[in-house]
């Protein structure tokens, strides 16, 4: 390792376990003075947990944090700010109802006998913004300005009030347009030249190459490595992000009809020019019976947006959707369920499970929704269904009356799968069904998807892990920058897909 004196921050051997999940496992991370250090990885890779540990939101199970050469214990975000670690989040943690000046100065505002000196405060705030080359009326409420400006104000507060030495920018560019982002990069370079260390988290890979000096890649809570940005080619970076997980690959491969086209040519779902402004540009997609179509793409490429359009969570503003030969007119989850479509949503906790309800209730929910309010399944029938799927999917639980929140991630995912299988869907859309669950459960779910297709259903399999998309799918759709970039048959090699996913726009 190079000269450690350069490091303003060094985190070593950081581990953090949440119930059922190893969020971080023995991760090292360091930051030099006057450096822009990109931290990347897919969702669930451990980026946000690492940042939470650094800023005192979470306390690590083990590991050391050294700040400026001295070990520190960061207990709260406030304490982190005091020692000079400030974070600007994607959702800006400022108050939109009070003025820009207050947002920058409050807590350290100039006062005389307890009275806020507004004039002086406004001048100081304007000066703080001038340092960032921002010229706005600081007496206006923050909410009157765009997100880009709000972000600048948040940075100004971090520098002014907290006198930050380390600035963490968490997905700062995700809601900025091209010019705004460039302006932010200019600012980052300027701060870097002032000796401030910047941790930059983003999922836009080309932006990383625009500003970052070094890159740290995380995957599944583990450190993949830290690299000099100049020495790491784009394609290689994507490969490192997607990785190859060691699973019991053989079993799945055996079950799969490799490369063969599905026997049936029956078209179960067809999207023609389906699109929605701001989420996904119009795309075509055909889905046949007994077929698994994999969807690959980086974070923000429009994966979840595609699932939401197909399932009717979001109504499209262009194109048509034809399910089993019938054109869909009303877009809603209930309508989709009636058409035989099912969606396992990406965010299991917020959109999937009902933690305080039992396994049985979670499993019958969608079926009951299709039955309506008054055709209630009696208790015996409910237990029959629950038992059937608990057995079929191997959900490990002492009883169907267990609360779902007490299950592990993998078992929760199986419960959601069971909920949809109970409705006997023709078309299954699975958005990241294997995220955050252990290796064994992953393989089981992959095998299940293949098996379901063999039984005559069709599946859309969305995943950030290229390996499993390749393994389970008959065809692969690649998304990039919120549009469909290409479609491949399954004998394509992973390098081609990675190249398509990563291509500079």
């Amino acid at each position: 390792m190079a000269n450690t004196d350069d490091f303003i921050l060094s985190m070593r051997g950081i581990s953090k376990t949440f119930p059922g999940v190893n969020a971080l496992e023995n991760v090292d991370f360091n930051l030099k003075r006057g450096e822009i250090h990109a931290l990347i990885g897919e969702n669930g890779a451990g980026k946000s947990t690492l940042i939470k540990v650094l800023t005192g939101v979470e306390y690590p199970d083990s590991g050391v944090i050294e700040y400026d050469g001295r070990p520190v214990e960061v207990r709260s975000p406030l304490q982190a700010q005091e020692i000079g670690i400030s974070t600007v989040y994607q959702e800006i943690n400022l108050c939109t109802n009070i003025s820009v000046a207050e947002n920058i100065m409050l807590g350290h505002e100039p006062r005389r006998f307890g009275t806020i000196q507004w004039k002086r405060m406004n001048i100081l705030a304007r000066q703080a913004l001038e340092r960032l080359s921002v010229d706005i009326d600081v007496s206006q409420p923050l909410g009157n300005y765009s997100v880009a400006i709000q972000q600048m104000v948040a940075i100004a507060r971090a520098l002014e009030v907290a006198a930050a030495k380390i600035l963490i920018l968490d997905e700062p560019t995700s809601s900025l347009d091209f010019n705004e982002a460039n302006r932010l990069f200019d600012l980052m370079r300027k701060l870097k030249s002032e000796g401030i260390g910047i941790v930059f988290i983003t999922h836009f890979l080309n932006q990383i190459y625009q500003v970052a000096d070094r890159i740290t890649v995380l995957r599944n809570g583990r450190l993949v490595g830290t690299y000099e940005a100049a020495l790491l080619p784009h394609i290689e970076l994507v490969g490192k992000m997607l990785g190859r997980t060691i699973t019991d690959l053989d079993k799945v491969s055996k079950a799969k009809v490799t490369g063969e086209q599905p026997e049936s040519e029956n078209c179960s779902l067809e999207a023609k020019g389906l699109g929605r402004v701001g989420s996904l540009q119009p795309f075509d997609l055909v889905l046949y019976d007994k077929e698994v179509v994999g969807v690959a793409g980086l974070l923000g490429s429009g994966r979840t947006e595609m699932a939401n359009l197909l399932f009717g969570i979001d109504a499209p503003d262009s194109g048509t959707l034809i399910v089993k030969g019938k054109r869909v007119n009303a877009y809603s989850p209930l309508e989709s369920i009636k058409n035989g479509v099912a969606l396992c949503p990406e965010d299991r906790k917020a959109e999937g499970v009902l933690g305080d309800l039992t396994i049985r209730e979670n499993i019958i929910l969608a079926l009951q929704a299709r039955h309506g309010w008054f055709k209630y399944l009696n208790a015996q029938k409910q237990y029959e269904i629950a038992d059937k799927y608990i057995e079929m999917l191997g959900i490990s639980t002492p009883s169907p009356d267990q609360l779902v929140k007490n299950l592990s991630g993998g078992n929760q995912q199986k419960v959601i799968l069971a909920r949809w299988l109970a409705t006997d869907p023709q078309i299954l859309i699975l958005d990241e069904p294997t995220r955050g669950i252990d290796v064994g459960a992953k393989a089981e779910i992959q095998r299940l998807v293949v098996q379901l297709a063999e039984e005559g259903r069709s599946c859309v399999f969305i995943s950030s892990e290229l390996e499993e998309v390749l393994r389970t799918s008959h065809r692969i759709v690649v998304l990039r920058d919120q549009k469909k970039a290409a479609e491949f048959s399954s004998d394509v090699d992973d390098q081609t897909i990675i190249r398509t996913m990563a291509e500079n726009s």
Partner: protein
Amino acid sequence: MAQRVKHFIKNNGPLLTTITIFFLIFFIGSRLYPAMQKPQVFFNLFINTASLMIVSIGMTFVILTKGIDLSVAGMIALTSAASAALLAKGAAPGLVMPLMLVMGIAFGFTLGCIIHFLKVEPFIVTLMGLFFARGMAYVITLEAMPIDNPTYRALALTKVLIPGFEKVYVYIPSLIGPILLLVVIYLSFFTRFGRTVYAIGNNEQSARLMGLPVGRTKIIVYAFSGFCSALAGIVWSISLLSGYGGYALGMELDAIASVVIGGTLLTGGVGNVVGTPFGVLINGTIVSILQFNGTLSSWWTRIGVGLLTLIFIGIQSLFYMRKKHS
């Protein structure tokens, strides 16, 4: 300049609407009933709404932090009953009044602590406060207890002439509301406490991350509301010269409605204490129009206030949405 005016209107839309509505209602009233054109009628509004104005001002801070205080009317009743009992026992007014204020602060402080430390919904905690205060008032006296104290009598009957008008007056207690308003305007715009109140109402999590004293501020807000209620209770006992647990029934609702009509959002963080007195005055104006009419009955006040509350919630969500979009 035009830009500034536009900004001002955009940032203060609900407040300006409230003030306009107040003058509009008063204007319509005085057109319909010429007797309302007398200046004294206008100042009677301040006499009649003295207590409501004080509690509403205290309530504004609470609502700005996204909370609610249902205990205010109970505190008015308790203060009036306790004052009457103490004065009847011969306690000096100079002792009774400060004692009541301290009681109000302690009461609000306790509620604030329960809300903050035990993390219980404000409306349940302050509901308990309402029950408790009213119950204690009934423990003190089961029926209205007259106050026969020369100081109270003097305060109740001394007229303060309004300069510039002939024979137009208010009573001393009616001045407390406007004075309190000045204090609160100072607090809300020129102290860290006031700005923290706004920040908490917008996003408590952000306020905490900004290092602002969230817990302390919330507790102070409830203590201040308790103080205002006790003050309103003193005013109430002065103007009625009696104390009783059944006084000010349902006034917490009038206060909340006044604050909302005054342009403060029940979702917190948005509003201006300047609007609150206008909300109170609108309430008072509706009452006096009904009195002048004579045939319309008092329940129209409640329906009118309810309707105005609905309209204001509508207007505010419109303003809010437009702001979010722009």
